[in-house]
C-alpha cells in the first residue's frame, strides 16, 4: 500500500522522511502480505472479512424468510432450517458484529489518538488469523451439512452429546472459542494502547471521546468473554470426555449454561453498541459544526452502562423458574440501564441543537439510528418488565426487539461511520446519487420486516419454528416480513454498489473533507503505514486539535519522532493519565509467526472436531512452543538509556522501564483470566445450590496434607521468581532461582494430578467430581504455563535480551506465579471444602 504525499505543498523534506519511514513500516508485496502486522492493514482485513460474513449471514437470514413467507412451506427440511437459523445468528453476532467493531477499533484507534500503531502488532495479526480460521470452520461446516443446529445460544441439554450426537455442536463450541481468542487479544491490546500510547500532551481528559468508548468497550470485553469461554470449554469437555457439568441426570444443571452464556451475552450487546456510539459521538459534533456537548457526562454514563450491563443477564431467563424477588433485581437493572443510554441520546440531540447541522448521507444514517434505536430501546424496557416478558419471551416480539437494537446499535451507525470515514480509507468522496435511495430501501425494508414481527410475536408465534399451519393469524404478517426482507436486501446490495463506485469513481480528496477535529485527519489520506511522519503535541482538547493546519508540519517531521532510527518502528508511550512522554516504544515488524500460531491452533481445533485427541495435544504443544519462540525476538538486545525523541525530549526505550506495555498487557490478561476463574467458582457453587441429583451417593475425604503441599510448592515457585527478579536486576544470571521455581511448579503439577485421581465420585460420574477436577486442572494448567514463562526467561537470558536495566521478563513471571498462588489457594480451598458443603445439603 503506497501513500500519497502532496509534494508541492510539503516539499522535499516531507518526501524524504516519507520514503525513510515507509521503508521501515511497509509490508512486502506478494505472499509477504501474509506477514503483515500493521494496524491499518489488519484493521481493513478485519472489516472486509466481517462484511463477507455479513453477506453470508444475510443470505442465511433471507433463506429463513423464504421458508417462513407462507405456511406449511417445504423450501427447507426442518434439519436444514435449524442449521440455517443457528448459523444466521452465530455468524451475525460472532463473525460480523464483534469483529467489525474490532476492525474499526484496530483501524481507527491509533490514528485518533495520535499513535503510529497499536501496542502489540503481532497480536493484532494473530487475532485476525484466529478470527478468519475460526469463522471459516464455523461457516464451512454448512457446506458439509454439519453446521451447528441448536440455536445461537446452544442451550443444553439439547446441545449435549445425548441429544446432538453429531459434530454440529462441537463446530460451534470450538469455532466460536477460536474466534473469541481474537476478541480477548483485541481487548487487551486496545486497553494497553489507549492507556499508554497516545500523542504527548493528550491527558485522559483531553482524549477524544472515541478513545473513552473504545477503552470502556475493551474493558467490558475482558470481563464478558471469559464466562462464555469457560462455558464453551466445560460443554465441550462434557461432550468429548463425559464430565457432567450440565447434565441433570448426573448432578449438572442446564441452567448453569444459561447463566454463563448470558453473563457474556448481555454485556455483548453493549460491547457492540459502545464503539458505534463512539463513532456517533465523533461524527455528530462534526456534522453539527460544534463541540460535543456533555463530554464528562458521557464518560460517566458509559462507565455506568458498562457496569450495569453486567447486572441484567437474567432478563434472558425470566421464565426458567427463578424466584420473582431475584427477577426483580434484574428487571430493575434492565430498566435503569436505559438511563445512561438516554444521557447519550440527549447529549447528541443537544449537540445538534447547539450547532448548525449539515444534512448529508452520514446524517441520513444518524436519522435512521435515532428512529430504529429508539424503538429497540423502548421494546427493551417493555421486555424488562417481568410479566410482559413471560408472554413475549421466545416469540417474534423478541426477534423484532433484538433486530431493532442490533440494527440501531450497529447497522445504521456503522453505515454512518462508513460514509464518514471512507474518504480516510480510500482517499475518495462518496457519490451521492445511489447513497440516498440505498438508505431508503434499507430503512423501509428493515421496518417492514421487523416492525410487523412485534405483532406476529404478540399473536403468539414462537421463534425458531420452521413452519406453521396457517390458522394462527400469522400468514399476512409473515409474508409482508419476507417482502420487507427482500427490499432490505436490495438496499444493502445498492449500498455495496455505491461503495464500490466510490472506490472507483469518487472524487479524490487529499485532506479532511469534513472539517473534523480529530487527529486521524491530520495525515495525508489514505494514510501511510506509519500514520504520522511525526507525532503531534496535543495542547487543547478534547477533540480540538485543528488537524488542518497540523498536517503539513507533521508531514515535515516537526513533531515528535520525525526521523528514522536504526530501522526501528517507533512510537511514543506516555504517562497513563497526564499524557507526558515517558518511553520510546519499539514495535515488532512483519512476521509470519502470528499466521503460523493461528494455523497450529486451527490444526488443534480440527483434530478435536474429529476426535483425534493426541494430534490435538501435539498441535497445542506446537502452539505453546511458537509463543515461547515469539518471545525470543521481542524487545532490544542491548541497553540504550534515554534516547532523543524530538522537541528536546529524551526518554528510555520501553524495554528499560517498569510500566511498559507488556506489564499492563499481562495485568489485563490476568483480569480476564480471573473472571474465568470467578465464573468457575460461581459454577461450582451454583451446582451445589441448584442442580438436581445432589448430593452424590458418596463423597471424597479431602486430603488436606496434599492440598497444603501443593500450596507450599506454588509458594516456593513464587518466592524463587522473586529471587530471579532480584538476581537479574543485580546483573546476575538467576539460573538457580529459575530452576527452583520450575521444580516448585513441577511438584505442584504432580501433586494436583494425583489429587484429581483421588476424587470420588469420579469426574465422569457426578458434577461434584467434575467441578473438583476442573478446579484442580485450572491450577495445574496455570503452573504449566508458569513453566513456559520460566523457559522463555532462560532462553532470553541466553539471547542477551535481559539485563539489569531490561528486567521486565522476571517481573512478568513473578506476576504470573503470584496469580497462580492466589487462585491455587482458592481452588484447593474450595475443593477441600466441597465435601463439607455437600454434607450441609443433607440427604
Amino acid at each position, binding site marked *: 500500500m503506497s501513500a500519497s504525499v502532496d509534494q508541492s505543498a510539503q516539499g522535499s523534506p516531507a518526501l524524504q522522511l516519507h520514503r525513510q519511514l515507509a521503508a521501515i513500516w511497509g509490508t512486502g508485496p506478494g505472499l509477504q502480505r501474509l506477514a503483515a502486522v500493521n494496524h491499518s492493514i489488519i484493521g481493513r482485513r478485519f472489516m472486509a472479512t466481517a462484511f463477507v460474513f455479513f453477506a453470508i449471514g444475510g443470505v442465511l437470514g433471507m433463506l429463513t424468510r423464504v421458508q417462513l413467507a407462507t405456511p406449511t412451506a417445504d423450501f427447507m427440511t426442518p434439519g436444514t432450517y435449524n442449521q440455517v437459523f443457528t448459523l444466521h445468528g452465530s455468524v451475525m453476532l460472532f463473525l460480523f458484529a464483534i469483529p467489525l467493531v474490532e476492525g474499526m477499533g484496530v483501524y481507527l484507534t491509533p490514528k485518533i489518538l495520535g499513535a503510529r500503531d497499536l501496542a502489540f502488532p503481532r497480536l493484532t495479526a494473530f487475532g485476525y488469523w484466529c478470527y478468519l480460521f475460526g469463522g471459516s470452520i464455523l461457516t464451512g461446516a454448512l457446506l458439509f451439512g454439519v453446521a451447528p443446529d441448536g440455536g445461537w445460544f446452544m442451550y443444553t441439554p439439547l446441545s449435549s452429546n445425548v441429544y446432538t450426537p453429531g459434530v454440529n455442536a462441537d463446530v460451534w463450541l470450538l469455532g466460536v472459542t477460536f474466534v473469541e481468542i481474537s476478541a480477548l487479544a483485541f481487548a487487551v491490546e486496545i486497553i494497553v494502547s489507549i492507556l499508554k500510547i497516545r500523542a504527548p500532551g493528550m491527558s485522559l481528559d483531553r482524549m477524544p471521546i472515541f478513545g473513552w468508548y473504545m477503552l470502556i468497550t475493551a474493558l467490558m470485553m475482558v470481563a464478558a468473554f471469559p464466562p462464555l469461554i469457560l462455558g464453551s470449554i466445560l460443554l465441550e469437555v462434557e461432550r468429548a470426555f463425559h464430565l457432567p457439568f450440565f447434565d*441433570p441426570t448426573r448432578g449438572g444443571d442446564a441452567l448453569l449454561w444459561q447463566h454463563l452464556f448470558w453473563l457474556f451475552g448481555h454485556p455483548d450487546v453493549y460491547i457492540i453498541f459502545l464503539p458505534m456510539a463512539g463513532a456517533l459521538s465523533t461524527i455528530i459534533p462534526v456534522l453539527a459544526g460544534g463541540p460535543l456537548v456533555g463530554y464528562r457526562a458521557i464518560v460517566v454514563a458509559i462507565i455506568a452502562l458498562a457496569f450495569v450491563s453486567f447486572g441484567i443477564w437474567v432478563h434472558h431467563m425470566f421464565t426458567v*423458574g427463578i424466584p*420473582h424477588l431475584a427477577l426483580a433485581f434484574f428487571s430493575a437493572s434492565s430498566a435503569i440501564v436505559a438511563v445512561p443510554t438516554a444521557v447519550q*441520546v440527549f447529549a447528541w440531540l443537544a449537540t445538534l*441543537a447547539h450547532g448548525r447541522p449539515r444534512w448529508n448521507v452520514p446524517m441520513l444514517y444518524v*436519522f435512521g439510528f435515532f428512529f430504529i434505536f429508539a424503538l429497540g430501546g423502548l421494546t427493551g424496557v417493555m421486555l424488562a418488565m417481568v410479566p410482559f416478558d*413471560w408472554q413475549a419471551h421466545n416469540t417474534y416480539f423478541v426477534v423484532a426487539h433484538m433486530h431493532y437494537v442490533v440494527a440501531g446499535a450497529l447497522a445504521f451507525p456503522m453505515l454512518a461511520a462508513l460514509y464518514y470515514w471512507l474518504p480516510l480509507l480510500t482517499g475518495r468522496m462518496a457519490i451521492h446519487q445511489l447513497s440516498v435511495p440505498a438508505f431508503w430501501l434499507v430503512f423501509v425494508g428493515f421496518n417492514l420486516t421487523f416492525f410487523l414481527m412485534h405483532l406476529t410475536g404478540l399473536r403468539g408465534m414462537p421463534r425458531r419454528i420452521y413452519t*406453521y399451519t396457517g390458522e394462527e393469524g400469522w400468514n399476512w404478517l409473515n409474508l409482508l416480513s419476507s417482502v420487507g426482507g427482500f427490499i432490505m436486501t436490495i438496499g444493502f446490495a445498492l449500498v455495496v454498489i455505491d461503495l464500490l463506485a466510490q472506490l472507483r469513481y469518487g472524487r479524490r480528496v487529499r485532506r479532511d473533507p469534513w472539517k473534523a477535529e480529530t487527529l486521524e485527519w491530520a495525515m495525508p489520506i489514505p494514510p501511510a503505514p506509519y500514520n504520522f511522519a511525526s507525532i503531534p503535541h496535543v495542547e487543547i482538547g478534547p477533540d480540538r486539535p485543528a488537524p488542518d493546519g497540523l498536517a503539513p508540519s507533521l508531514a515535515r517531521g516537526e513533531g515528535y519522532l520525525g526521523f528514522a532510527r536504526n530501522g526501528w518502528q517507533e512510537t511514543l508511550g506516555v504517562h497513563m493519565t497526564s499524557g507526558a512522554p515517558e518511553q520510546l516504544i519499539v514495535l515488532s515488524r512483519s512476521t509470519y509467526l502470528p499466521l503460523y500460531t493461528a494455523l497450529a491452533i486451527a490444526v488443534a481445533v480440527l483434530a478435536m472436531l474429529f476426535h483425534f485427541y493426541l494430534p490435538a495435544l501435539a498441535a497445542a504443544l506446537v502452539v505453546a512452543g511458537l509463543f515461547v519462540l515469539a518471545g525470543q525476538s521481542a524487545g532490544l538486545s542491548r541497553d540504550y538509556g534515554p534516547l532523543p525523541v524530538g522537541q528536546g525530549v529524551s526518554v528510555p526505550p520501553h524495554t528499560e522501564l517498569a510500566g511498559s506495555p507488556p506489564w499492563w498487557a499481562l495485568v489485563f490478561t490476568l483480569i480476564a483470566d480471573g473472571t474465568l476463574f470467578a465464573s468457575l467458582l460461581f459454577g461450582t457453587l451454583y451446582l451445589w445450590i441448584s442442580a438436581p441429583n445432589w448430593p452424590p451417593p458418596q463423597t471424597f475425604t479431602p486430603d488436606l496434607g496434599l492440598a497444603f503441599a501443593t500450596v507450599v510448592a506454588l509458594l516456593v515457585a513464587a518466592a524463587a521468581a522473586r529471587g530471579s527478579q532480584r538476581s537479574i536486576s543485580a546483573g546476575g544470571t538467576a539460573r538457580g532461582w529459575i530452576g527452583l521455581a520450575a521444580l516448585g511448579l513441577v511438584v505442584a503439577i504432580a501433586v494436583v494430578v494425583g489429587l484429581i485421581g483421588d476424587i470420588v465420585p469420579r469426574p465422569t460420574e457426578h458434577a461434584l467430581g467434575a467441578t473438583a477436577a476442573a478446579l484442580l486442572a485450572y491450577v495445574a494448567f496455570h503452573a504449566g504455563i508458569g513453566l513456559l514463562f520460566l523457559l522463555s526467561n532462560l532462553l532470553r537470558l541466553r539471547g542477551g535480551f535481559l539485563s539489569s536495566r531490561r528486567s521486565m521478563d522476571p517481573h512478568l513471571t513473578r506476576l504470573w506465579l503470584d496469580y497462580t498462588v492466589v487462585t491455587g489457594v482458592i481452588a484447593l480451598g474450595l475443593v477441600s471444602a466441597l465435601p463439607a458443603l455437600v454434607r450441609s445439603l443433607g440427604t
Partner: protein
Amino acid sequence: MIQLGSTVALTGCGGPLSTLSAAGPAADAIATLWWVMLGGSAAIFALVLGLFALVILRPGWGSSVSPARWIVLGGLVLPGMVLTPLVAYALITGERLLPLAGIARQRIEAEGRQWSWTFRYPGEGGVQTVNVLHLPAGVSVDMAVSGFDVIHSFWIPRFAGKIDAVPGHVNVLRIQADEPGRYEGQCSEFCGIGHALMRFAVIVHPAKDFSAALAQAAASSPASTKAKE
C-alpha cells in the same frame, strides 16, 4: 383498559395463540400492562423523533436550553419519571400472578419431552392425557412443569405467560381459564427437529363437569390411558 384490549383483539389482535385476546386473568393483566406500555412508548418515541426533527429542521431551535439542562431533563428526569412507576407497576403485577401457597384448587403436572406433552392429574386419581390438557373453568390451577429430556416451555398464550420445562427442575405456573371452550398451547423453547409441531390442545370444561369429562376423555383416548412410568 381491558375493554380496549378486547376491542382491538377483535380487529387486529385475534388468533388462537394471541396474547392479546386474553381468556384468563393472568393474560388479561399482562395485556393491560402491554397497552399501557404501548401508549407510553408511542409518546416517548414521538418526543425523541420530534426533537430530532426540530433540531435538524430549525437550526438554533434548542440552543436557548443549556447543554446541561438538555442532558439532565432528557437523560435523567424523563427516564426516572417513566421507569420508576413502570417498574413498580410491573413488579406488583408480577407478584399477583405468583402461585402463592394455598389458593389453587387444582394441581396438574405437565411434562415436556421430544416432542409431546404429558399431563397428569394427581387430584383426579392420577389419570394422564397426552397433548390434550383438560382444565376446569374459573378455577385457578397450578401447573407443575418439568422436562423429560431437553428444555421445553409450557405456554397457553390466552391464559398466562410461559414457564420453562427444565429437566431436573419442577416449575410452578398458575393459570386460570375464564370460560369453557377449546384453546391452544405450544412449546416455546427450541427443542430440536420437532419443536414447531409441539402444540397441545386445551379443553376447558365447566368446573362442575370437570372430573367426569376428564375421566371420560382419559378412558376414550388410548394414548392417554397408557401409563408410561
